[in-house]
């Protein structure tokens, strides 16, 4: 299995620092985006802690393409069954605890938190895990579908029938989260399996992208033939900056091929 991927981040046009973090571990099939929040640049600390925790734990796992020599494979003991859902849950819980603790111990970092959105390749499927309003999309057959449901007040209003989805686009507050990492002692992430077809492109991004660029435009960029993933990511960030760039923008693109 081969992975084609790229990652780009940009502070945007308005903010003077970048509180987004990202992680690409292609050998483990793990890609992460985190959008930090908190005063005094504490957002940078929170999102970095989240991403570091995932990196640390992932590096303890055998790489996806690990090949064992035949004689080793004959005599090895049955490895304990690895449940990726449990692993993600435990790792995200650890990240939450680390950020929460750091926030308690520092006046400047009090109340800091971060969103988290990741994909984790397992066998022939992909797991998404997320907390907050950073998103994972899948581009397939010229269509962009959102795989994760935002943990935001706007989304909650749509789910409860208070506003329609169209109304929510311009009427609901666009930066109020209902869940985030590091803000409370417990965290409730969503972990979901999704199928993968060849040529699927996974897009992970912070809200700085989708709040500034229409999804139709994102799909158009992803569908452009002859462009590398890196060029597509670059065009998306350009589009977000041209649309106003009101927040930090992070784009991670990943494509799995056999």
């Amino acid at each position: 299995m081969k992975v084609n991927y790229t990652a780009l981040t940009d502070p945007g046009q308005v903010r003077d620092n970048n509180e987004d973090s990202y992680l690409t571990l292609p050998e483990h099939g793990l890609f992460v985006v985190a959008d930090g929040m908190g005063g005094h640049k504490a957002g940078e600390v929170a999102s970095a802690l989240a991403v570091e925790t995932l990196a640390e734990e992932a590096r303890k796992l055998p790489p996806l393409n690990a090949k064992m020599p035949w004689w080793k494979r004959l005599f090895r003991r049955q490895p304990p069954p690895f449940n990726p859902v449990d692993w993600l849950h435990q790792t995200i819980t650890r990240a939450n605890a680390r950020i929460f603790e750091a926030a308690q111990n520092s006046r400047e970092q009090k109340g800091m938190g971060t969103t988290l959105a990741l994909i984790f390749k397992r066998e022939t499927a992909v797991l998404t895990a997320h907390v907050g309003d950073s998103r994972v999309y899948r581009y397939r057959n010229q269509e962009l579908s959102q795989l994760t449901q935002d943990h935001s007040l706007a989304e909650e209003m749509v789910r409860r029938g208070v506003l329609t989805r169209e109304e929510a686009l311009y009427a609901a507050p666009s930066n109020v989260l209902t869940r985030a990492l590091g803000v409370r002692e417990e965290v409730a992430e969503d972990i979901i399996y999704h199928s993968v077809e060849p040529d699927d492109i996974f897009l992970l991004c912070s809200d700085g992208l989708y709040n500034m660029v229409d999804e139709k435009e994102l799909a158009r960029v992803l569908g452009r033939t002859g462009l590398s993933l890196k060029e597509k990511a670059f065009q998306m960030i350009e589009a977000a900056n041209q649309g106003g760039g009101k927040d930090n923008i992070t784009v991670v693109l990943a494509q799995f091929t056999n």
Partner: protein
Amino acid sequence: MARLILSLRGRELDKFLVGQGKVVIGRTPECDITIDNPAISRKHAAIEYKEEGYLLTDLGSSNGTFLNGEKITAPTILKPGDVVGLAKFELLFQDTPQSEVQKMVGGLESMESTMMVDAEKMAKAFQAVGGAAPAASGPRKLVVLKGEANIKELPVERDVVTIGKADTCDLIIKGFFLDKVEATLTQREGRYYLIPIGGSVKFNNEKLAKEQALKVGDTFTVGKTIVAFT
């Protein structure tokens, strides 16, 4: 924030959201709300946000603007539930719940930073505006992790989903030694159960002999195929 529902003889035609600006209602396309009917004047009426509330004004229309059946003679502040009459058309004025939710969640209008809302406060706020209980987060589905099946992802939409070798199964798994129907996934009282029928169903690496309650993220095997319930 307010909502206007346009209807004609009891049939709903359209819905509009009004923010903190002014909405002009009339026959021409330049209007914010266009009603293409000869009884409506080119610029018929306006609804404008003011500090005291939403103000209804007649813009010198030929047939007049009515409020709850009576022709208005001066600009009037609208109350939720008021019906604005323009010829045979009706505009129902509603205060959207969103402003109620915002009031309760503490006036979160800051555009600068991201905030997190208190879960309890939010639940209370939604209760107050009568928001429906939230649907479970996302539909359930079966995703094939390894092995061969007719599709890679199957949304679980019915109460009973059949899994096996037969063409009539919802999830068709390839396998010479598999039974026509190896297992079913059934829903009971909001929970999902995997019920083994053939002999090739495994859960947690053990042959499944009786029904197993599934939680999101669980995986099971049918023959050589691994399926996740998510």
